[in-house]
């Protein structure tokens, strides 16, 4: 069953503007928060067990406590560079409920005592950026942003910064480089952004959904928030359901929700006459699950980790039996090849290499040894780079090749896809 915590009013158009938002209880939580002590906010978020909703799932409260107390200015960055293929939840959140995110940001900024924050928004999200800009203007006019917010003595300024279309700028240090006006390339860690981030100042980077969730943790309290979800994965999560499914879209369910139910109930099941082949549970960089595995999976950090994959951004791609896994991996790796920033050698060369090998296989030029080669190349990219892009390319490769090895071997042997009617195969033969 869907639990509409964040998305409660998403079906109402008036929720986008400040008057409608206020009518539906908007900015009341901010008033409550400003009466609390900043450290109480942090403690509440920590107690709620909120984990980052952008992909890595790092505990938000713990991230906040990494900020050093050295008197330096702190920055809060909202990661709205939603680039993980098949993910579209942040876009909806910003388009439908910009004030919800802004309120969550001001509360979070108050918690970590930051006077300045930026929303780094994906360049393609032009409409969302416009909505956000307008909402920020409204929030300034209403006195929720700016100097001495609601007479509390807390000052906060917020700006929108639009990216230029690079996937890598969704990586938090890549985003910081880009925001600093440099080429969007990840930085070496350590130092981590909490210690030395934007302009070498302590910086917290949180996802849109994470910051919006903070509002509800403060509104209801950690205990109430923890009633949703599982013990180790508390709260609700927005899942972007797409692929071979009848009702694709964003669905908010408590963490720990069975994937099977999400597909069959919320997603309306597969198309007529089709059977499930595989599911990518957390954006294309998450290892793929076979149909059998998918039927057993629950959508929480622990279960998916146990199955060797991850919750990631919460983008669920349903793959039915009409799809060729070789073609699909070809599309995915072409993306990562195109998006590798090129700093670290294993990623720069490895993504290109895998892309080329897959391309050879798809064009009927595959060699027998290529299946093992793909696996080996991917394994030797893993964990050998500054950021996780190499892993993002390696994980699908390893899982596709090992779980659907027969399709790769067939493609190489026969020079065409095992799946009749697969779009790529027909394009090339």
């Amino acid at each position: 069953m869907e639990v509409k915590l964040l998305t409660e009013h998403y079906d109402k158009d008036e929720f986008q503007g400040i008057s409608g938002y206020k009518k539906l209880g908007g900015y009341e939580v901010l008033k409550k928060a400003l009466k609390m002590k900043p450290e109480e906010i942090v403690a509440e978020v920590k107690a709620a067990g909120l984990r980052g909703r952008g992909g890595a799932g790092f505990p938000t409260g713990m991230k906040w406590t990494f900020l050093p107390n050295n008197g330096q200015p702190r920055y809060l960055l909202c990661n709205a560079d939603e680039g993980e293929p098949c993910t579209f939840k942040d876009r909806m959140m910003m388009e439908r409920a910009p004030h919800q995110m802004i309120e969550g940001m001001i509360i979070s900024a108050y918690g970590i005592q930051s006077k300045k924050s930026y929303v780094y928004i994906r360049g393609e999200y032009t409409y969302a950026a416009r909505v956000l800009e307008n909402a920020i203007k409204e929030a300034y006019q209403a006195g929720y942003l700016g100097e001495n917010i609601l007479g509390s003595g807390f000052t906060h300024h917020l700006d929108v910064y639009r990216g230029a279309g690079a996937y890598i700028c969704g990586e938090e240090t890549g985003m910081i480089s880009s925001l600093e006006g440099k080429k969007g390339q990840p930085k070496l860690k350590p130092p981590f952004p909490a210690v030395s981030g934007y302009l070498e100042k302590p910086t917290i980077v949180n996802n849109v959904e994470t910051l919006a969730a903070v509002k509800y943790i403060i509104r209801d309290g950690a205990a109430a928030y923890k009633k949703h979800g599982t013990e180790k994965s508390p709260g609700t999560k927005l899942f972007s359901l797409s692929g071979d499914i009848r009702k694709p879209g964003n669905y908010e369910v408590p963490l720990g929700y069975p994937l099977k139910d999400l597909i069959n109930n919320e997603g309306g099941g597969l198309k007529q006459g089709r059977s499930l082949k595989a599911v990518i549970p957390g954006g294309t960089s998450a290892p793929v699950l076979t149909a059998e595995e998918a039927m057993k999976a629950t959508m929480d950090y622990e279960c998916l980790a146990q199955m060797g994959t991850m919750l990631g951004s919460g983008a669920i791609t349903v793959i039915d039996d009409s799809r060729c896994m070789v073609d699909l991996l070809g599309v995915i790796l072409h993306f990562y090849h195109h998006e590798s920033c090129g700093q670290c050698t294993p990623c720069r060369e490895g993504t290109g290499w895998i892309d080329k090998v897959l391309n050879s296989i798809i064009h009927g030029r595959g060699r027998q040894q290529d299946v093992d080669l793909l696996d080996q190349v991917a394994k030797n990219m893993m964990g050998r780079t500054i950021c996780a892009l190499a892993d993002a390319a390696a994980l699908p490769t390893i899982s596709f090749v090992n779980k659907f090895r027969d399709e790769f071997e067939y493609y190489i042997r026969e020079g065409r896809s095992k799946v009749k009617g697969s779009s790529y195969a027909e394009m090339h033969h």
Partner: protein
Amino acid sequence: MPKCTINGKQIEVAEGTTVIEAFMKLEQNIAHYCWHPGLSVAGVCRMCMVKVEGNPKLQIACNTKVTEGMVASNEDAKVKEAVEWILGFHLINHPLDCPICDQAGECGLQEYYMTYGKYDPAMAEKKVKKKKVVDLGPTVVLDSERCILCDRCVRFTSEVTKTNELSIFNRGDHAEVGVYQERPLNNNYSYNVVDICPVGALTSKDFRFKQRVWYLKDFNTICNGCSTGCNVKAYYNENGFYRIKPVYNKEVNGHWMCDTGRDMYKFVNLEKRQTSAVKNVNGTSEEYSPIQATREIGVLLRKNVNEAAAVLTGQYTSEEYASFFATMKDFGIKDFYHWVNNPEKMEEFDGLLLRGDRNPNTAGLRAEAKKANINLRNAKDLDPKKHTLIIVAGPEVQAFYPDLQKSVDAWSKSQTLVWLSSCKNPVLFAAHWIVPMKSFVEKNGTFVNYKGIEQKIKKGTTIVGEALSLDEFAIAIKGERVDVEYTSPLGGLA
């Protein structure tokens, strides 16, 4: 001061030391391309992988700080396999054109290929095509296909020269080093990017295709291009000198040297040199052996002791000055002059290494004069009419002396002008005698730099067999026997 164990060896290092620095201190081999001790850490080549006990993931040694009790190793089979693969990634799109590559013989890819190499190319697909023979500026040529994008050259121009000419353009496996439109790589330290390029991507216009590096011998010496006295390595073979590269010295030049200094080898090769002594009388020239010429000059000097003067430049070694001053005082010479390049620019400094005083041993000259109780007067005040004989210990690098011709012409108004010179120059024919001198690569001795640091220069080879050093001149002028030691360009004594 954390203690750690590197490949089973214990070492105590300063706080903040990185694992790769600890490896270097222990002289343990560790593969690396992007790390350079004179630049910031980039952490992109991923070659310096080490296993740190207690950490399941391999770490890069360049961005990992040593902590108390750390145990790190790169001898582990897991590390070796990882490095082998990372080297493989470096090589899949490399053109493997060693036979026509200028870097062959001193290339990082070749070096590690011999240690970790896989002996069959692993990629069957076509390599990425990139730009070849890219003209980056007056000194450096780029081959993008050979480039491994280690970012050293980019960091050099941003951190050392702060001129920011270079950058990496594009991304992923299409990324290429390049310069911005109409802003070429044109600074006086540009050749350093060729030195720090671990592969054959950046090559020197001055050196490329001139000589295979395995046909060159080298020795360490001191640059004679200015009063900084950068530590350098000079490369030569039987055909002469080919290039000069910097040698690390924390106190003097760090890791770098300027492009001006790189040219210093050009003034020592045979085609530039004065090879025999010459006597110019009434428009005709007569060749002499240098020793014989010096003896005749000695005879003349004895006759003109009271009216003779010596002019010195800061381009000789302290030992030569000492011996020269002693001899001149024996003769009874009283007038000594100090001649400098561009007196108004002597105190200039470019902020990195190059100094306006383009003489390697001005401080040594002054010190030796003081020791010998000699008052060095400014050469501007030299009146040739007052002196019947002038001996000029001329500059080795004449290009640094803009008033060379003016000075020769002025001083040749003296009855006898004796010019000691390692380089030949038609301008000098106004002098009555020219005696060939040894260049800085042909003699041992000491240069004292602007800070007073004494540094030894070393005899590498002999280019002009009969040329004299200033001390040999000082012996010969007394009529005494000089044994000119000759070192074969092939090494050893001939």
